[in-house]
């Protein structure tokens, strides 16, 4: 009971004096899936833990998992603000409108929304990650390594983030292997291990030997493992290093991975809030910021390909190379990037067409 009173009064105080110097800063996180999903939510939680690790007693980290998008999320975010959170990270696209709605009612609390574009109030920032930079690297590796010239992409929903990933993956494979053919299967889910495995199986049975997934589970990698080393895949969101070697010590299906690392961003923003340099921003970080990381490459990748991939990573990290650099054409053959021109963030964020060479059509 006493603890409750303390808690409640601390919360009210927290509301009144948002960032009193000696109180620990309250950093709160809303997750769309369970922390144990091994992918999207797991990585955000790693970022949250990194905040705690960095600032120790000066910060209190709290979270809530498996929060449905829509009405439930608005309530959860409001309860967080009421409970004294100083900064709230909402980590799924579907939280965009609820985040902005709650932000209007709590002007002293800072809100950070992942993967969206609305910043209706001065206390709302948005942040995202340039996953397509990672797709470029694995596309290059896939194009160089495929023996059947068929590479696969397990796609979730036809939204710009997925479509730009597909384009980036395909373009960089084709650049090094003009004969490469892309196979896309839409599973219409972010998380259904059995269906993801079925999708991988369908591709493998049709001769696809390099697969990247835009879904959360490790099931596609486990399915690829059954091919006994004739097909490979990539870790998605987290490193998935368990699949780097098989139980018998042979080379596993995961030859590298695209890791979403949110820690640098979370640590930076909470730090800015504590030292008073916090400002509203729209952040879209990638390899230069350490938010997109290519996991350790295994020796299944030939040394020269590893070196090329490393070179591309360094070029992107140094800002010398943009994966969407012209000339580029859409499927109808119309040019949308002139020679040497790099794409603007706006059109990239809204990308809803395939590039030239992909034979499939986008659903709808």
């Amino acid at each position, binding site marked *: 009971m006493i603890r409750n009173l303390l808690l409640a009064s601390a919360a009210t105080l927290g509301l009144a004096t948002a960032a009193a110097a000696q109180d620990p800063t309250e950093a709160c996180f809303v997750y769309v899936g*369970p922390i*144990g*999903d*091994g992918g999207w939510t797991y990585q955000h939680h790693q970022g949250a833990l990194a905040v705690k690790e960095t600032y120790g007693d000066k910060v209190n980290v709290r979270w809530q998992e498996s929060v449905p998008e829509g009405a439930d999320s608005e309530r959860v975010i409001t309860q967080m603000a009421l409970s004294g959170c100083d900064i709230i990270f909402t980590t799924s696209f579907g939280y965009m409108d609820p985040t902005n709605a709650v932000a209007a009612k709590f002007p002293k609390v800072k809100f950070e929304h992942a993967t969206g574009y609305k910043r209706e109030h001065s206390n709302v920032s948005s942040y995202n990650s340039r996953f397509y930079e990672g797709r470029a690297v694995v596309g290059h590796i896939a194009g160089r390594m495929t023996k059947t010239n068929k590479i*696969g992409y397990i796609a979730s929903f036809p939204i710009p983030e997925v479509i730009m990933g597909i384009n980036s993956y395909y373009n960089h494979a084709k650049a090094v292997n003009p004969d490469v053919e892309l*196979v*896309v*299967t*839409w*599973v*219409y*889910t972010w*998380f*259904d*291990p*059995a*269906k993801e*495995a*079925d*999708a991988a*199986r*369908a*591709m493998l*049975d*049709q*001769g*696809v030997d390099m697969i990247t997934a835009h879904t959360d*589970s*490790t*099931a596609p990698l*486990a399915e690829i493992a059954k091919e006994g080393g004739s097909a490979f895949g990539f870790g998605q969101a*987290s490193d*998935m290093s*368990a*699949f780097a070697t098989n*139980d018998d010590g042979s080379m596993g299906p995961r030859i590298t991975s695209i890791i979403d690392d949110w820690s640098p961003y979370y640590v930076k923003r909470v730090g800015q809030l504590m030292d008073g340099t916090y400002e509203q921003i729209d952040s879209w970080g990638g390899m230069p910021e350490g938010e997109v990381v290519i996991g350790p490459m295994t020796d299944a990748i030939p040394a020269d390909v590893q070196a090329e991939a490393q070179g591309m990573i360094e070029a992107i990290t140094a800002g010398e190379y943009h994966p969407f650099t012209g000339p580029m054409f859409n499927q109808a053959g119309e040019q949308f990037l002139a020679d040497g021109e790099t794409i603007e963030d706006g059109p990239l964020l809204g990308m809803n067409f395939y590039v030239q060479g992909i*034979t*499939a*059509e986008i*659903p*709808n």
Partner: protein
Amino acid sequence: MDLSAIDPALLVAALMVSATPILLAALGEMVVERAGVLNLGVEGMMIIGAVTGFIVGFNTEVPALGFVAAAFASALLALAFGLLTQVLLSNQVATGLGLTLVGLGLSALLGKPYEGMKAPTLSQIDFGPLSDLPFLGPVLFGHDPVVYLSLLLVLVVWYVIKHTRVGLILRAVGENHDAAHALGYKVVRIRLAAIAFGGSLAGLGGAYLSLVRLPQWTEGMTAGAGWIALAIVVFASWRAGRVLIGAYLFGGLTVLQLNLQAAGVTIGVQYLSMAPYLITILVLVLITSGKGRGSHAAPASLGRAFQQSR
């Protein structure tokens, strides 16, 4: 579009593996419903089987033990449902839904330490040169033991229900529990046994997911398979053979639509993903509107509570 890329033998082999979890779970649920009990908690029992199978398989490194433990754990959970519905006479629909909540919650708590780990998995049975036969090789001689076990179970369940005294009693209890009671059969005990059997098969189905199909443990990994198993039972009009057809048809449609996509068929992906459900409805309408409708009827006492001293 390149339909020649689809190899029918590989397609059939893939659908057999893909359908095995729902086949096992649906077969178990069919027996339960034949005894007159509707247990909507298949999803919960499957996921408890998945997590138990994984934990035991991981720690003992013997996948077979994982399957045994999964069958026991899910049977135990099913008996909780049995206690509530048969002894305390609670409503079966609501209790089944509650069972799913409990199963999902409990499995997530139990499985926390095992996320992201790999379990030892069952390997294919070695049939020697038979596996290299064209078409028949991959379809008949290229699977792990549980695929064959599931087919054997279909046969056993069919035989027992149709041709044995045990099956007769089970059907009597499901069709008219009052008459069965009057004949001196222990209705509640028989139903509890059926519920436990159904639970153990659902557990095997779940363990197949976590130990063979995917091999991994992830929270919520059954992702609705239990609900599909329930649908298959009704689709099969409570016949073991048709449960097999239903499970393979359903698994087959999912596998087929993904294969069509991979082969570059561009006719509305979203229509393809809802096709399995629509075709299930269509087939159901066809079989119920055809001849001999009476033979497709549900067990007469399905879902009704039995109370002894009436």
